[in-house]
């Protein structure tokens, strides 16, 4: 029904809202279905993410100069930022895990920013992508915790600072919250990215109003263009902040695994 309405609206020249179409995964070549190994738009934009990361961190630092170029200082800034985050949040003994956390941060931040290019596909807006990242963190952290502390890792759930009668209840809450972590970790990132991009598309759909009705369009079209610009600016902020949040939460979880006692 809705599809018919949409089709009719397109034919009659009304406003067309397809805010979720930007998240559709399509094969890059041909019209076939999407199998596991099909080269799709997600492949293309993940490849662009990888190339952007290489351009910044590898090509940017290729001169190895003591007085850095602009690119090199951004690369050094990213390096110092995440390294300091790992050291401050998870402790010095977390530094061996720094390359893994840097990988997660560079992927998320680059995917977020690359996704902001007009017409781009945002891989981090897919819950499948962020859930894999979050589960990766969840399982690694849990395994690290048990390998380093054995059964002592369970003291994470047994809060010795609380009064004894409360401890079983708190332990239950802690266990639940521990298992909810990957859910909130992944939905936070995907939800933020999806919402921002969908809102931009909705505002964009209002922009052709001036073609349909000049009177209303004179007000609505400039407002919607202004709103797109404002949301875009907000999204630039969100792109970085969500990458930062995702990474710092990873560090916090890693800290729990390395130092389980409260």
């Amino acid at each position: 029904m809705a599809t018919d309405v949409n089709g009719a609206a397109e034919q009659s020249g009304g406003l067309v809202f397809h805010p979720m179409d930007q998240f559709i995964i399509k094969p890059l070549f041909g019209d076939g279905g999407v199998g596991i190994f099909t080269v799709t738009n997600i492949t293309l934009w993940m490849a662009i993410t990888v190339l952007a990361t290489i351009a910044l961190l590898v090509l940017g630092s290729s001169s190895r100069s003591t007085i850095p170029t602009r690119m090199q200082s951004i690369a050094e800034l990213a390096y110092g930022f995440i390294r300091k985050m790992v050291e401050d949040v998870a402790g010095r003994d977390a530094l061996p895990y720094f390359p893994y956390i840097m990988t997660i941060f560079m992927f998320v931040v680059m995917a977020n920013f690359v996704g902001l290019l007009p017409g781009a596909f945002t891989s981090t807006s897919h819950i499948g992508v962020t859930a894999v990242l979050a589960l990766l963190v969840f399982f690694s952290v849990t395994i690290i915790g048990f390998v380093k502390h054995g059964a002592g890792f369970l003291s994470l759930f047994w809060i010795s600072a609380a009064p004894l009668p409360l401890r079983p209840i708190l332990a239950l809450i802690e266990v639940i919250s521990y298992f909810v972590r990957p859910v909130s970790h992944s939905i936070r990132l995907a939800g933020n990215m999806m919402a921002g991009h969908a809102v931009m598309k909705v505002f964009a759909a209002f922009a052709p109003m001036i073609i349909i009705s000049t009177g209303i369009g004179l007000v609505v079209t400039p407002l919607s263009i202004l709103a797109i610009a404002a949301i875009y600016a907000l999204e630039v902020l969100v792109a970085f902040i969500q990458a930062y949040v995702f990474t710092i939460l990873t560090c916090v979880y890693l800290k729990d695994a390395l130092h389980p006692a409260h």
Partner: protein
Amino acid sequence: MATETAAATGGQASPIALEEAGICVDSHGGAIGLPQLCPDWMGNQIFWLAVTLVIIFFVLSRIALPRIAAVLAERQGTITNDIAAAEDLKVKASEAEAAYDKALADARSDAQAIVAQTKADIKADLDAAMAKADAEIAAKTAEGEKAIAEIRAGALDAVKEVAKDTAREIVAAMGGQADAKTVNAAVTSQMKG
């Protein structure tokens, strides 16, 4: 395949029914429901994500991170060296300042010694000159006194002579026979008186 199913059933079935049937794209290529939740696409996302993460991880851990770490360490080394060099230079500068101050103080004390020496020399010369001048003055004074005494003695003799002559002439003028010896003796006794 999802598209084909959608095209086959599209148009008639409700979007909710289509979504429940696992169809993600309608006959116009629009999304049905949340594309994020489409089960057909999950495997593809996960596979390419895994590939991407592995590539990024190897690029970072093999090339980028060691290189940036080396650059940062090198810069830290350079800064440390530069600070050490600056400290050295500072020490050298303060040494040079101390040496300069010392040289200045030495020069000043030398100058004072030279001034004192010169003053002493000048005083000695002056004293000698004064003594010489005093001696000369004394000699001249003595000479002058002697000359005055001579003149004074000369003048007394002349007065005696003149007095004798005058007395003789006066005696002769008064008609007396003046014996020169008597007159002279008289005059001499008068003058002594």
